[in-house]
């Protein structure tokens, strides 16, 4: 066996000289220095390794040039045509529609259909109900300015853009909104998606690919989970909002990487600002610290927090006092606070520009209709102009509602039976049943039973026959009449007059629309709440617990908050006592 030291030194010197000469020749080719550098280093470190590597490259080339076959696609046994025909004849596929489960049916049966605008009120079953279900945090869908803006935009731009942003679908309206949002949240650039779900679900896979690492909160909402899943990266979860666990996960990943000598791959931490499913706020100060320390990129999805948290509505980052500069991607929906449609991702210019080619939901889909873009732009302006009036009021309303509901629950004897998890600032209040509490002793662990119970509560509150206090209803009726007459604070209802709905061209249709939709003529109904709904068997890894998600809006008045709390408590009380009597 020959080793390096056994070689004649002269031969070695000769070889080395020859090599050096050859390398110099090669070096003149652009890009080659890197190769040469590599070769010379490995030669220095271990000559035999170089030899082996060259051999390997040779074998690899031969292998690649040889005839290709795909073992995975070839059937294990080659079958004759007759045999295949027989297999085809024997094969019985499952039916295409999956059989509906009980839970599916519950979702189907609990669809309610409303008519007319959606705002503080909702016209359901020809009754005017108070709306505590829509994610209309800032009451923007009630604003008459936005509607007027939309009518104007319609006459300038029509409705659809008829093309993706790359092919004549980029409107000045989009550019303006992108700039305004970027300025508002304090990032260099923003990119618009025409669908809220698509923003986060396209943003993550645009960067994270197979082999990359994503660390995500286990309670992240469904859209986030999808984005993470489609990227095919390695996913690690940490306990909900548990910073110690997050750090432990990050340390473990780093340790494994070093132990296995794996190369550095892209690494992301994905959190929500205000968690949709739990109503908690992420500890962004700690997350940004950890992110910097362990060199991860940070994605914050803040569809519920954007416009509702922080002094000026800049979301969870402002609320927690974290540094926006450390948030690489700030993602939020425009449909909630800003009365539009779609969503955005804000970040550094170079990085966001990458999504204009690689963000699938951006590149391969028509751009947002101008009406929606301008509506959001207008809403953003309102938010900038009167942050105190909107956010201050929303905060006060939320606090008031929680207090009122707690009070009502106590009065109904449900204080141990029903809980309101989440932080006080969250305008989406999850109302949950406490398992094992005395009144619910007979409630099993079956998720479906619980959902049914909650649905019964929701229905009761909406129909309102036995839960709405007649005296209160009368007061509410008077309040509505006054609001409509004065039309100051939330003027959309007042703004809609019969004349508004009449275009000379189509008076008949206008009349039909008017009679069908005007809230003014409708009798008073109950309160619309909704269960938080999930596609249970597709949620990963554990579905969030069942709850009624009460959405507070800046549009609500105190009397309405009190009424909603009373109706909810009463409905809960009635349903629970009837069920377990």
């Amino acid at each position, binding site marked *: 066996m020959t080793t390096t030291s056994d070689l004649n030194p002269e031969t070695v010197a000769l070889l080395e000289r020859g090599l050096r000469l050859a390398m110099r020749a090669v070096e003149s080719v652009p890009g080659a220095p890197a190769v040469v550098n590599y070769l010379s280093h490995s030669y220095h470190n271990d000559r035999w390794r170089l030899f082996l590597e060259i051999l390997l490259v040779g074998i690899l080339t031969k292998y690649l040039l040889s005839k290709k076959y795909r073992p995975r696609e070839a059937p294990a046994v080659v079958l004759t045509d007759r045999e295949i025909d027989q297999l085809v004849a024997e094969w019985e596929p499952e039916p295409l529609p999956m059989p509906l489960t009980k839970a*599916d049916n519950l979702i189907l049966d609990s669809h309610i259909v409303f008519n007319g605008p959606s705002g503080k009120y909702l016209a359901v079953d020809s009754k005017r109900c108070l709306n505590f279900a829509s994610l209309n945090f800032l009451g923007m869908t009630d604003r008459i300015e936005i509607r007027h803006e939309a009518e104007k935009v319609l006459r300038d731009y029509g409705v*659809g853009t008829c093309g993706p942003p790359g*092919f004549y679908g980029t*409107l000045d309206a989009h550019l303006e909104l992108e700039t305004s949002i970027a300025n508002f949240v304090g990032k260099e650039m923003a990119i618009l998606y025409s669908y*809220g779900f698509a923003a986060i679900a396209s943003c993550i896979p645009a960067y994270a690919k197979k082999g990359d690492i994503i660390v995500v909160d286990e309670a992240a909402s469904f859209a986030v989970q999808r984005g993470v899943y489609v990227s095919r990266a390695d996913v690690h979860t940490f306990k909900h909002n548990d910073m110690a666990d997050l750090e432990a996960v990050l340390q473990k990943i780093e340790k494994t990487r070093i132990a296995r000598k794996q190369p550095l791959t892209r690494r992301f931490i994905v959190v929500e600002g205000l968690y949709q499913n739990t109503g908690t706020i992420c500890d962004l100060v700690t997350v940004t610290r950890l992110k910097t320390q362990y060199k991860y990129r940070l994605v914050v999805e803040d569809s519920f927090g954007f416009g509702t948290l922080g002094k000026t509505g800049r979301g969870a980052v402002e609320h927690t006092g974290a540094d926006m500069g450390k948030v690489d991607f700030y993602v939020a929906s425009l449909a909630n606070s800003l009365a539009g449609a779609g969503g955005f991702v804000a970040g550094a210019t170079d*990085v966001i520009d990458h999504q204009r080619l690689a963000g699938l939901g951006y590149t391969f889909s028509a751009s947002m209709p101008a009406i929606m873009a301008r509506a959001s732009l207008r809403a953003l302006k309102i938010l900038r102009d009167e942050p105190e009036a909107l956010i201050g009021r929303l905060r006060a309303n939320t606090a008031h509602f929680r207090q009122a509901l707690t009070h009502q629950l106590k009065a109904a004897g449900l204080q141990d039976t029903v809980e309101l998890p989440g932080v006080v600032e969250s305008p989406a209040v999850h109302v949950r049943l406490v398992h094992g509490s005395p009144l619910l002793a007979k409630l099993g662990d079956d998720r479906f039973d619980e959902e049914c119970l909650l649905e019964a509560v929701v229905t009761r509150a909406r129909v309102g026959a036995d839960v709405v206090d007649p005296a209160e209803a009368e007061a509410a009726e008077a309040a509505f009449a006054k609001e409509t007459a004065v039309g100051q604070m939330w003027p959309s209802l007042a703004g809609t007059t019969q004349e508004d*709905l009449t275009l000379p061209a189509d008076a008949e249709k206008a009349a039909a629309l008017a009679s069908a939709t005007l809230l003014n003529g409708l009798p008073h109904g109950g309160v619309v709440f909704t269960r938080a709904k999930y596609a249970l068997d597709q949620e990963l890894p554990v579905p969030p617990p069942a709850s009624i998600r009460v959405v507070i809006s800046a549009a609500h008045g105190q009397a309405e908050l009190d009424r909603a709390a009373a109706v909810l408590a009463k409905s809960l009380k009635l349903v629970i006592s009837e069920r377990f009597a």
Partner: protein
Amino acid sequence: MAAQEVERLPTLTTGLGVGNDNTMAAEMAQGESAASPFAAGAKRTLHEILAEAAHVDPSASSTYQLTSLDPTPSTKDLLKRNPAYTPSEPLDPNSVGIVPKGLLESVDADEFLRKAAHQPIVTFDDHTPESWVYPIVVLITHLSYITLTVFGHIRDFFGKFLRPQGYNHLKEEGYAPLYSDFESFYTRRIYIRTRDCFNRPITGVAGARLTLLERVTKDYNKTFQLTGRTREVINMGSYNYLGFAQNEGRCADEVELSLRAHGVSYNSPRAEAGTHALHVELEKLTAEFVGTEDAIVCSMGFATNSTIIPALMGKGCLIVSDELNHASIINGCRNSGSTTRVFKHNCAADLERVLRQAIASGQPRTHRPWRKIMIIVEGIYSMEGSVCDLPRIVELKKKYKCYLYVDEAHSIGALGPRGRGICDYWAVPTTDVDILMGTFTKSFGAAGGYVASSKAIIDTIRARAHSSIYSETMPPPVCQQVISSLSIIMGRDGTNDGLDRIKKLRDNSMYLRRRLVDAGFVVYGDEDTPVIPVLLYNPSNVRHIGTSFLKRGIAVVVVGFPATPLVTSRMRICISSAHTREDLDKTFDALIEESTETMIRLNYKAT
């Protein structure tokens, strides 16, 4: 009145629609809609059908005569489309519109047409030019890409020394680069050269004309600055097939009314207090238009695919997908967790091969039988202009017990004598396709998508699709735009506006495509689709055509690698019913003038 109009729908391409128009017009006059025009109606002989086919609307003629492609189907055409048929007496294969007598009586005309319908007229493979120049063009194209790549690397090589700050994004300390080397290299060194042809900002309506915002660049396309000036150009790039991108007229009026009555937007998902009466109305209307039991809408076409496929398919299922399917379909397949196999574009034979192999070998590794198999195809392929070979795929689907999902994003409204898409075009009953998906972005001038199918399937989707449970509903003005435009297409407004648009679109598409084909351009796709891709080959042509057309006042879409295969860079013209003959002629003339420099008339024959 309406009946006469329909009868005169030009039936230039196939002559196949012809037989149907009469029955159809009669049905429509009675206010009924039939799933298949073949289903009912008196039997007619081929003679009658051909006589009708020969009837051309004189008003449709223009300065240019469609000589080479006569509207009357030739015997050759008919025979080509029905290979199973053997004539009893020798035929002159080039005779036009004359079919020997005995032959005609011997076939049942409707049966003949139904069979004939199984052959697409122009198949995808027909397009490779025969010219001897073609190999040279291919070679030059490859050389161009090599040159681009080599120059790119040379610039990178020096750039890293001279301007290291430009490469910061690739080597942030302690972080892996955010995008792979290839992506970054492609964007920095190749895409950027043509970047001024993409994402051009506009204002106003993208109708037959559009208003571009002029922009300039001071740093070789890295950034653009708007100059504040605008420019009106002919729009050959938007998917405005039926010309409903409008800010006036019936649709806009109704949308305005609707805005006043229903507001601008709703915040909730469909399942959580987000279902409006407009959604219900729209879904009913869509189902009726498409010809299915039920339908569901979603406010983004992309998301319709990517969130609804997972509601139907899961682990242990197989999706067999056309190799050129849209990104949203691929995304949906991935999302669903099922296995995906692809087959050659629009090739039924390859599809059959894949299906047989898949059923024979079962699931990977376990070899258990598949739970179910779904074939996913598109109606019109947006980059190829080809129409899916539906009858054959339906045959295969039945033979192999698979399910069929057709994405009609580009074909709904644009194909078929009544604009009802691919099933209308091929006269295939809609019940033969399990899922008909489409978007409202294109023909309807709105946004969003739908899925139409049986009630059971739609209920599954309603209860399980991510879009119904987790994201915002379709905004009311968009709903109303679709309702209004659909009503117009269906003739519910009491006018012929809808049919006129369908007819005009077909006229326009065939007119320009034929002129281009006759002039020797290499044009992909089937004859009567409004998507006309003209092959450009060389990457430098992509930029050249993109910018020079703009100088001439025409906005077109150009695409190159990696959106297309390396060699087949193309320019895509999207025809609209709003285009006038002058618009089309201008586009044609521009292409002819540009072709001297770009060498793209590879099929040109000097005669």
